């Protein structure tokens, strides 16, 4: 149990009660200092120190101003101070495969729907978002479902704010493509071959459209006719990632071939399960990250046993064993509850994923931040970044350690002492 100096709680409570002045830590408020037993700092470069002992973190205007050994960092005058005792601090967690932003994530009339967006379905502050936040998940990529080959545009959302405009970090956050399986339809008569043709055909049209706009902007061509449903490809050309529901060896290979090698688009493997890990070395070679889950194992009687003759394979462990360096974890929430994101990483470790360099924590923080293009501002505890922080009783990948406090933009938004949601 993490103890908090009661005087600080009182100060925070009175600030909240007044309801007008900014809270300590957030923009415009007093500074905030947090001392903890360990900080999982998670810089992107894995050769840098990932875990620090007896740490103080200074927060001002919602950003991290300093982090280092508590003995070296004095609390500036005017700062509120919190000591979480034996508690650990980690960056706010990020899930790149989530459907809990609202409802109505599948429009199944057409086979490819690059023009659709989950935007009109977002329900700010919904109960699942609150639960996610209470578990330290501060950012989600809210994406369409996999009922069609291209479900549409996903949004990168903060889970804490109750106003839509404050929730949205990136719009578009990604284009959702479902490479095989779920989008199959019409019973007999449609196989993966046609699904892949649909994807290739739409990507080809979309990119041609986006390039016409590029030419126009570079004064090398006429103004193209606006085709709203293909506008997303202009963003893709500029680097917005494609999140690809893909799994099984040959399907992951198709993903790499069609979207990365042929189209040259920023793509990440989403799911990547069953024996998808057999394509891990190629994915690494092409710089394609893998956000794995919700299934964590491949096994003859649970998976498809295509390569492994009944042996049990931990999916993350197998990507790692093949030299893949950008491994993250997802929940596909609500397939696995959003609040159990860190348990997904922990189970990855149980199934053989090497956690000695804090890989479980990196896989739900800095790795997804990098993949979706927000590593400059989130995903690690480094000076200048957003103060999205989670206080846990101990190592977060041991589920016996509960989340005690969550800070978003420096503001304390969850306190399990006051209200425990998970």
């Amino acid at each position: 149990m993490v103890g908090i100096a009661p005087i600080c709680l009182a100060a925070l409570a009175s600030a909240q009660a007044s309801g007008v002045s900014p809270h300590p830590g957030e923009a415009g408020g007093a500074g905030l200092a947090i001392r903890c037993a360990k900080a999982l700092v998670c810089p992107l470069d894995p050769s840098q120190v990932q875990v620090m002992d007896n740490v103080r973190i200074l927060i001002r205007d919602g950003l991290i101003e300093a982090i280092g050994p508590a003995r070296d960092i004095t609390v500036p005058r005017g700062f509120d101070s919190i000591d979480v005792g034996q508690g650990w601090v980690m960056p706010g967690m990020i899930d790149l495969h989530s459907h809990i932003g609202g409802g109505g994530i599948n429009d199944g009339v057409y086979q490819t729907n690059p023009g659709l967006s989950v935007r009109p379905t977002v329900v700010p502050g919904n109960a699942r978002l609150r639960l996610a936040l209470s578990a330290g998940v501060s950012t989600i990529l809210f994406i369409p479902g996999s009922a069609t080959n291209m479900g549409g545009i996903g949004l990168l959302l903060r889970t804490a704010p109750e106003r839509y405009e404050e929730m949205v970090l990136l719009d578009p956050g990604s284009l959702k493509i479902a490479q095989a399986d779920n989008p199959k339809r019409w019973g007999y008569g449609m196989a993966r071959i046609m699904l892949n043709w649909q994807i290739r055909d739409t990507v080809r049209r979309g990119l041609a459209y986006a390039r016409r706009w590029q030419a126009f902007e570079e004064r090398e061509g006429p103004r193209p006719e606006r085709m709203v449903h293909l506008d997303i490809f202009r963003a893709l050309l500029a680097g917005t990632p494609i999140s690809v529901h893909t799994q099984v060896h040959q399907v992951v290979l198709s993903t790499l071939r069609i979207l990365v090698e042929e189209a040259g688009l920023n793509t990440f493997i989403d799911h990547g399960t069953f024996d998808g890990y057999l394509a891990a070395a190629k994915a690494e070679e092409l710089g394609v990250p893998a956000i794995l889950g919700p299934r964590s194992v491949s096994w003859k009687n649970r998976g498809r046993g295509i390569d492994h003759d009944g042996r049990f394979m931990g999916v993350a462990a197998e990507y790692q064993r093949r030299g893949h360096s950008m491994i993250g974890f997802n929940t596909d929430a609500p397939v696995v509850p959003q609040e159990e994101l860190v348990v997904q990483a922990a189970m990855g470790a149980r199934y053989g994923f090497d956690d000695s360099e804090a890989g479980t924590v990196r896989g739900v923080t800095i790795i997804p931040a990098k993949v979706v293009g927000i590593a400059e501002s989130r995903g690690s505890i480094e000076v200048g970044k957003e103060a999205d922080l989670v206080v846990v009783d101990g190592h977060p990948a041991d589920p016996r350690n509960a989340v005690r406090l969550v800070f978003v933009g420096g503001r304390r938004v969850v306190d399990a002492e006051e209200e425990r949601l998970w």
Partner: protein
Amino acid sequence: MVARALGTGLAIAGLWACAAPAPGLSPVPLAAEGELRALGPDEEGTIWSCARILTVDGSDRIFDPGMIAVQGGRIAYVGPPLAVPAGYEVRSMGNTWAVPGMVDLHSHIQAGGWGDINDMVRPVNPELSTRPTIRPSNPAIKVACAGGVTTLFGIPGSGTSIGGFGVVYKTKTDAGYEETVVRDPGGMKVAQNFNPQRGPEELGGSWAGLGWILRDINKKAVAAARDGRDDPALANLVRVHTGELPVLIHCASAEGVANTVRMWKVEFGTECVVSHGSWDGYKAARFAAENGVPVNHGPRTMNFRSMERPERFVGTAAEYEAAGVPDFSLNTDAGIIPQEELFLQASMSARFGADAYRMLRAVTAHPADSFRLGNRLGSLEAGKDADIVFYSGDPLDPRSRVELVLIEGEVQYSPDLDGQWF
């Protein structure tokens, strides 16, 4: 200690004289604690050493490091390392922790899937048994073993008010029914409310009807016992009413748990165990405790956004523990939660506020004791079955891995030999 364990064992063995004998287990001449005799020329035994032993015995002894001698399928010695007498094979398990094999009283994986657990023509089926459906060493059982679960009560489903009788068996990975059975019938399965509810036009459409159906059949069994009437359909139910066999009762919610205690303990005086007890069932925990009724909790171990006003989050395992129910245990209801994740039920209950060590008891000693299997199972003590699991670290931390599973002294699972199964 040894004398006490042996004494209890004999007493209970007498009580359960009619239950199936322990196949393959011959009486072992037990050494007094602290000494270990040399083996004769015809005797075989193995000594297992490791970094830590959590005995989960009545005194909660922990040995750092420790040594376990196994002979004839049973534990001959557990304690600090001693000089090894002649005749023993010595096996070092290095830095691992040894814990008792886990026991789950609510499991449906005996047939290898969801099939064959519900016969739903009649609302009560005390004449039925899961015996003909058991597929020993089926793939789900093998993975359970790899997850450190060594004993299961394989029971019917909750499709009717009395599903029938279950079998207590070991999760040996390559054995037949005769080698795996611990007790058959192991006990009865009742579903007190919710699932067995029948159509509105039938008796049993409401909980009142369900209650009547159960009371009626119980009265018939009591009368049959009193009159010495030989009714094959009621024979096993009569054994429940004579206290010869325990009964596990699917119930949930406060009124469901209270009805179970009232009918099965207060009115009929059976050896009943509440199973599930979910949602606000913990509100009847004190009533269960006062009447000495054990609770086998799960798979849901928290209550959230319930009928509570104001809404609050409740870790329900902690509530049952606080109420002092005897032999509190946890279940998976496998395959609702995969059988191999029984440990995670304990970890998550700790996350939700229960004491972590008590939750280890809840998957080892307590389920064994509450089903009167404590003479053989549930802790590492001289005289008990050598069902031992070696973990790479703390058994409730998912990052720890199962390194070896012994059942009755025989290696059933070793990732080194078989590859990792879980």
